[in-house]
């Protein structure tokens, strides 16, 4: 580790460095400054000190971060709620297993929470060798401060080579903070992860510009290599209840008073919108024509056990709440089946759904751009086609 050295003789107690420190890592103890564990060795204090009382140990500063050979193993951040592990975390255990096997190392789960030991066992049954577990009442609900502190504690101690996170609201909030603190690379929304056979680096491939380009990204000199992956990009792995693994406990180094946010309430959506997890999405657009007409979209979604989506046009018209919006300024979804009803399929809408496995377009305009990306297209009036689909599916699925 790098070290910040403080020459207590030279320090005049001017506090310039305390002001300057971006991390709140410097405090006055009597007449001289002291450094706490928040220090990231950024050197801001060194530059500002008028009497050169601060120095960073030099050889450490030259290296951008770390001795990368110290880092090994693949970790998956285990997201959970109400004692249930998020599907995306299980999917990542499946993918993580492949990466660990390619590297010849262990796969571990990083689990933070309160009374979540049953989850730890489950992580092992889905392919992990080890679970690093930090439990505390402070971790009862996800909050950036407490979870990031717990994760940094584990990562700094056990030094994983790779850490992958679900690209959920929580995973993005969390991974962005952890990577910034560590000064390592983070690649968002990867759709492909593999190990370069020669360099052993993690090749992270992701779409950008609404899927118009793909980029492969490496993190060569910093560790861990970190990625987020959206739900359902990787398949759910099988479960092996006989699998044995090790659970390693680490305490959380902070208490409730150190957390700067407080959750006051959680309002569950009246209608389950969870587009991210839905295997089937039925979406309505401008062609639906009004809020009452969304009933037929909902009916089809219900029959198929799917969620209801919408185009921006339908949301802007006030027919359906924003939570349902799919597209560039709404949610990005990747269901197995996406049924677009009365949606013309603007580039912006496509950006949010075009990686769906199967796209069905129902539109009365044969020229609608949606047909260009649809797996199956039906040129028809949605007011006839959608109820008919619902009726027929109900028969087939015996509902």
């Amino acid at each position, binding site marked *: 580790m790098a070290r910040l050295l403080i020459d207590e003789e030279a320090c005049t107690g001017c506090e310039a460095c305390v002001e300057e420190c971006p991390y709140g890592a410097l405090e006055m103890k009597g007449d001289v400054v002291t450094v706490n564990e928040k220090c990231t060795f950024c050197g801001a204090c060194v530059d500002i000190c008028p009497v050169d009382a601060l120095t960073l140990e030099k050889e450490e500063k030259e290296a951008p971060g770390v001795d990368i050979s110290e880092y090994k193993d693949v970790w998956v951040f285990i997201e959970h709620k109400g004692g249930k592990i998020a599907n995306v975390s299980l999917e990542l255990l499946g993918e993580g297993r492949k990466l660990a096997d390619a590297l010849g190392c262990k796969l571990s789960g990083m689990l933070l929470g309160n009374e979540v030991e049953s989850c730890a066992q489950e992580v092992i049954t889905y392919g992990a060798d080890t679970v690093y577990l930090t439990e505390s009442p402070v971790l009862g609900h996800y909050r950036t401060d407490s979870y990031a502190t717990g994760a940094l504690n584990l990562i700094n101690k056990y030094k994983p080579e790779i850490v992958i996170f679900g690209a959920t609201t929580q995973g*993005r909030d969390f*991974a962005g903070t952890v*990577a*910034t603190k560590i000064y390592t690379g983070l690649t968002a929304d990867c759709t492909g992860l593999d190990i370069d056979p020669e360099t052993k680096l993690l090749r992270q491939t992701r779409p950008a510009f609404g899927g*118009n380009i793909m980029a492969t990204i490496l993190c060569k000199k910093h560790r861990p290599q970190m990625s987020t992956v959206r739900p359902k990009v990787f398949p759910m792995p099988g479960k092996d209840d006989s699998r044995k693994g090790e659970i390693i406990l680490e305490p959380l180094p902070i208490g409730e008073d150190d957390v700067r946010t*407080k959750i006051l309430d959680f309002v569950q959506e009246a209608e389950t919108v969870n587009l991210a997890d839905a295997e089937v999405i039925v979406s309505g657009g401008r062609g639906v024509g009004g809020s009452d007409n969304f009933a037929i979209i909902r009916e089809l979604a219900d029959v198929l056990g799917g969620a209801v989506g919408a185009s921006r046009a339908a949301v802007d018209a006030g027919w359906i709440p924003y939570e349902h919006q799919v597209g560039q300024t709404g949610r990005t979804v990747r269901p197995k089946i996406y049924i677009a009803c009365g949606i013309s399929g603007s580039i912006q809408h496509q950006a949010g759904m075009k990686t769906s496995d199967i796209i069905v377009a129902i539109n009365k305009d044969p020229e609608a751009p949606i047909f260009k990306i649809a797996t*199956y297209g039906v040129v028809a009036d949605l007011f006839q086609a959608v109820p008919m689909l619902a009726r027929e599916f109900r028969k087939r699925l015996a509902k």
Partner: protein
Amino acid sequence: MKIVACIKQVPDTTDVRIDPETRTLVREGVESITNPFDEYAVEEALLTKEKYGGEVHVVTMGPPQAVEVLKNALAVGADYVYLISDSAFAGSDTWATAYTLAQAIKKIGGVDLVVCGKQAIDGDTAQVGPGVATQLGIPQLTYVSKVREVDVEKGSVVVERMLEDGKEVVQSSLPVLITVVKDINEPRLPSLLGIKKAAKAEIPTWTVEDLALDKAKCGLEGSPTEVVRVFTPEPRGGGEILEGEMTDTIPLLIDKLMEAKVLK
């Protein structure tokens, strides 16, 4: 109250080009707009100022032409704008971008609230907001769909966050950084007076030296991630249009969908 909105200029079209040499985006020659989510960020900053008093500062990091998005911000009512631009910033990944923006926010000084869009539509990472908050050492509230109250006296803010399955109501200490979703407000249009004012405005540019940045942490050099390959994905070909009467096409469609073995 001192409020900073961070905004980004992004290409308007989906017709992006990649420099084959540097493998980074060619931003010249493509029509540019303010990242749509950042318009909500600017609007939220303005609404907060109108409700609680204070001033709105807007920063953007980018090439010289990114000054245009700052003019738009001035036209809708921002009080101060700053362009963070230096050739040394080229190739910044989210880490280096967050580092640079955070230094600019520190230079503005005494900031109570930082507002960012939840993500930019070009990179789509949603990482810079949390990165800036972490660099500043302040808490972050991401995916905010409503700011319920701000109490500068008590140093407290209460917001609603839009999560996958519902709304979380959270309180945080100030200063804080929030990232906002589209639902939070309706961005205003610029006034004629605003546009005139913006056209005449002298916009300050801050460089590596102005921000006292560590060059080793800027641009390509300071970026932990490196793009090694950029390629165009196989275009998603148009599929099958089911022709004929609906009494034929709908059952056929159902047959095809049942084959996928998703529906049970």
